[in-house]
């Protein structure tokens, strides 16, 4: 007996047991769901159901997941033995490009190529589904992630109600275009283009109003208050029937006309955006570039340095003359701006808006994009948003066997956990955090190993 327990305690077999257990859980979670009348269908189907094993031959699910567990065990053991070698080789390989990237012409060339790719992208993706996903789910979320990154990544404030600003932007657009049950201001129905400054101004005011009393709070307390703010806005949108149309959406019960599309009427130039997502894609692309440039200029400005100081040590920041409240409120207002714009585009593109679009889940989703991409890294959150949103939309479009839409957040959670373990600074860490890792690698620093993600 004792010999068996000793054998089970060796690292090798412990890894095998962990792999088997993980895959058993995954098999259960991805398997069929039971019901009140047949409660055993879930577990028995999860393991017993016959599936095609790698398209080669039919077999029970337990065999498939047993193979997965063996593969996981193999990769794990291999990584422990060869991981350091692989990481060193990878960093040797990526050093020359990184160094080249430090040269201005190379960097600008890279940006030009990126923008060119962005411009021709809709011509590479011709599927109707992916074109609309590109706008509604990817580009809009890139904007939202960029905005939340200012709050979370630059100023270090945990905001769990970011969706509120998105909602305010969208409802402000509906309001000034005269598409809400409540009359437009001064009875003038504006083109959505004019809604952009109005919406951005409104969300920035909302940011200041929310921020001034609450940003004295720190950490968890702030997170709770922002969470509440997000919920309040959604509840307002749901319950103020006379103003927002309630849960019927911006059209209200009476079926008011929808929010108009963007249009340009400048002398001889007439252009009207339509249901076609491609023109919207270009519109957002322009604004994404504007926000990226503005936010990265801000990051390296005096304001950005004040944010870094507050994030690292608030008392020290005060001692050098930084007013923490002022700069935190600024972060809130500036971050909200891009969410406000995202709201305008969503409103104009989807014609009707509903409170159900602006849920807590969206706030969490945006936060997940920022954490996955790399807090404080503009390139990181943009790429992170593209990767995660593309992935989740792919799962929605072509779900693998047994996948249900509600499973998405489970996978997202698993992805975040794996990110935190293996790459805690995110997909593309910000420069400050990357520099820290370089310091550790060269042996000059003695940073906490967990923080830098260098060793398991």
């Amino acid at each position, binding site marked *: 007996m004792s010999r068996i327990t000793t054998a089970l305690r060796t690292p090798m077999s412990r890894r095998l047991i962990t792999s088997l257990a993980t895959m058993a859980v995954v098999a259960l979670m991805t398997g069929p769901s039971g019901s009140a009348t047949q409660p055993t269908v879930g577990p028995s189907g999860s393991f017993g159901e016959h599936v095609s094993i790698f398209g080669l031959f039919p077999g029970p699910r337990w065999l498939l997941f047993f193979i997965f567990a063996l593969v996981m065990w193999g990769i794990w053991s291999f990584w422990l033995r060869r991981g350091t070698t692989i990481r060193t080789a990878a960093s040797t390989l990526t050093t020359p490009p990184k160094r080249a990237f430090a040269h201005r012409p190379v960097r600008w060339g890279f940006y030009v190529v990126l923008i060119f790719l962005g411009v021709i992208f809709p011509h590479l993706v011709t599927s109707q589904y992916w074109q609309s996903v590109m706008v509604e789910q990817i580009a809009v979320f890139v904007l939202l992630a960029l905005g939340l990154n200012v709050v979370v990544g630059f100023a270090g404030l945990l905001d769990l109600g970011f969706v509120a600003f998105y909602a305010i932007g969208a409802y402000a657009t509906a309001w000034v275009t005269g598409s809400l049950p409540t009359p437009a201001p001064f009875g003038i129905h504006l083109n959505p283009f004019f809604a952009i400054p109005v919406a951005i101004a409104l969300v920035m005011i909302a940011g200041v109003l929310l921020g001034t009393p609450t940003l004295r709070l720190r950490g968890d307390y702030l997170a709770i208050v922002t969470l509440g703010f997000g919920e309040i806005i959604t509840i307002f949108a749901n319950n103020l029937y006379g103003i927002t149309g309630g849960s019927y959406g911006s059209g209200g019960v009476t079926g008011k006309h929808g929010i108009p599309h963007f249009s340009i009427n400048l002398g001889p130039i007439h252009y009207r955006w339509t249901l076609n997502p491609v023109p919207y894609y270009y519109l957002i692309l322009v604004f994404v570039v504007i926000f990226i440039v503005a936010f990265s200029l801000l990051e390296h400005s005096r304001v950005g*340095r004040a944010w870094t*100081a507050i994030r*690292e040590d608030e*008392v020290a920041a005060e*001692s*050098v*003359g930084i007013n923490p409240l002022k700069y935190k409120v600024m972060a809130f207002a500036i971050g909200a701006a891009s969410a406000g714009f995202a709201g305008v585009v969503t409103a104009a593109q989807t014609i009707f808006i509903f409170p159900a679009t602006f849920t807590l889940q969206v706030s969490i989703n945006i936060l997940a994009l920022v954490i996955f991409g790399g807090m404080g890294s503009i390139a990181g959150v943009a790429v992170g948003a593209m990767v995660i949103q593309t992935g989740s939309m792919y799962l929605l479009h072509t779900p693998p066997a047994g996948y249900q839409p509600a499973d998405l957040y489970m996978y997202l959670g698993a992805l975040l956990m794996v990110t935190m373990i293996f790459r805690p600074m995110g997909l593309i860490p910000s420069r400050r*955090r990357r520099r820290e890792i370089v310091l550790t690698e060269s042996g000059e620093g*003695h*940073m906490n190993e967990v923080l830098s993600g260098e060793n398991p």
Partner: protein
Amino acid sequence: MKLEVRDAVVRYGAITALHGVSFDVDEGEIVTLLGANGAGKTTTLRMLSGLHGVTSGHILFEGRDVSATPAHEFITLGIGHVPEGRRIFPQMTVEENLEMGAFARKGSYSDDLERMYTTFPILKERRKQLGGNLSGGEQQMLAIGRALMGQPRLLLLDEPSMGLAPMVVESIFRIIGEIRDAGTTILLVEQNAAQALRLADRGYVLENGRIALADRADVLLTDPRVRAVYLGEDAV
């Protein structure tokens, strides 16, 4: 008079931390505040740097009442604060930390940066390293340098010797003396009474939120009560 504290009372809710404390610091002096844990040293410094307001009483800096000034405006007034536990920015380089010290200033500060590197040669060697990777003594020097970058006329030092090796404390105290010689008035809050009194001109001893003793530093150094309580010698 550089700094005058008159009958300052500080309360944390129902607890009174300072019961009417009065003391002053003259131009060009090093004054030290001594006291055991919980005597009110840190509260006094928090009050002097605007982190905690006074319930009653006054703080006059160069004749001006600063008792209601928010913390972040103190450096612009001319009061620099080296917080307890150093509190340097861990993920900024040494140079960026020093530059942050000049945040509230207008105009160029490059000659001050050079002066810091002459005062603290070790910081020049480490200028590209992250603040968090420095040793305790280097961090203390960085914290002092950062406060000096704001060109204070009065420097508040909160326990600069905390957690440092005796030799390092020695050199930190030598530097504090040099800073005073360069024209900055210093208020030093310390637990290391012997070192502090050897450096200071005058000293105050806080006990239970009140000033228990006030005298010239050399007198305090020989005072049997001080020797008994703070220097670990048996009462005579």
